[in-house]
């Protein structure tokens, strides 16, 4: 299936939402149906799944919003 850039972008965002389990029921159905006919999106979805797996596998750590704020105020205190 051919679709324009904007349409693809919309579908790609649904695909991304699926990675976070945040797509609505309707979006999921719409996307799954679309995947049956569209190689571009199928390819994108497969890559997206691999990226999610890779990120999980990396076991990355980052600071939470609260921890960032704490650290910022700690540093601000020490700078002044």
């Amino acid at each position: 299936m051919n679709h324009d850039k904007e349409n693809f972008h919309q579908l790609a965002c649904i695909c991304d939402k699926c990675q976070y389990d945040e797509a609505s029921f309707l979006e999921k159905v719409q996307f799954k149906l679309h995947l049956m006919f569209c190689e571009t999106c199928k390819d994108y979805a497969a890559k997206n799944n691999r990226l999610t797996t890779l990120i999980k596998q990396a076991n990355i750590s980052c600071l939470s919003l609260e921890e960032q704020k704490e650290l910022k105020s700690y540093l601000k205190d020490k700078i002044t």
Partner: protein
Amino acid sequence: MAKNLYTITPDRWVETHSDYLFNFAMGKVNDRDIAKDLISETFLAALKAKDNFKGEASERTWLVAILKRKIIDYYRKINSNKGKAEVKVNYFSADNDGDWLEERIENPDYVTIEDNIINNELSEAIYACLDKINPRQATIFKLKTIENYDTEVICNEYNITPSNLWVIIHRVRAALADCLKEKWLS
């Protein structure tokens, strides 16, 4: 010889380096509170030593060097506290600039160690890719993807709409996939 190529900006350290340093520390100590303490100590030591910063290496490299010292000190303290000074030097690390870490010898779980090496290498690669992205967007991505924040919380914090958020997530994922494709996603 190029001198003073780099400058330091302490007021941007948290934004620019704290996640990277925290991830690095977590890879070595695997304890959130200890890792956070190590970052605070690193920033404090860096502030005290900032006049010695020659600008020949990047701010990141300089901060990582200080953090590595802090991690070593931490393990030294643990080992001396336990009355066991048995330490070994572990050369298996993500970067190749002679990175090393003293580690207690009574942990010969090689499978785990090997897994950790790959994971460290991968997380380093992911962070290297994220460094090329707009820091605000990278942080939003990390909060959503790594810290599993609710969309609503991030939107409130950054004053964006959910559709803005998904556009950002899409951009970062696309950039990340592109950056990782050769080595990790092929």
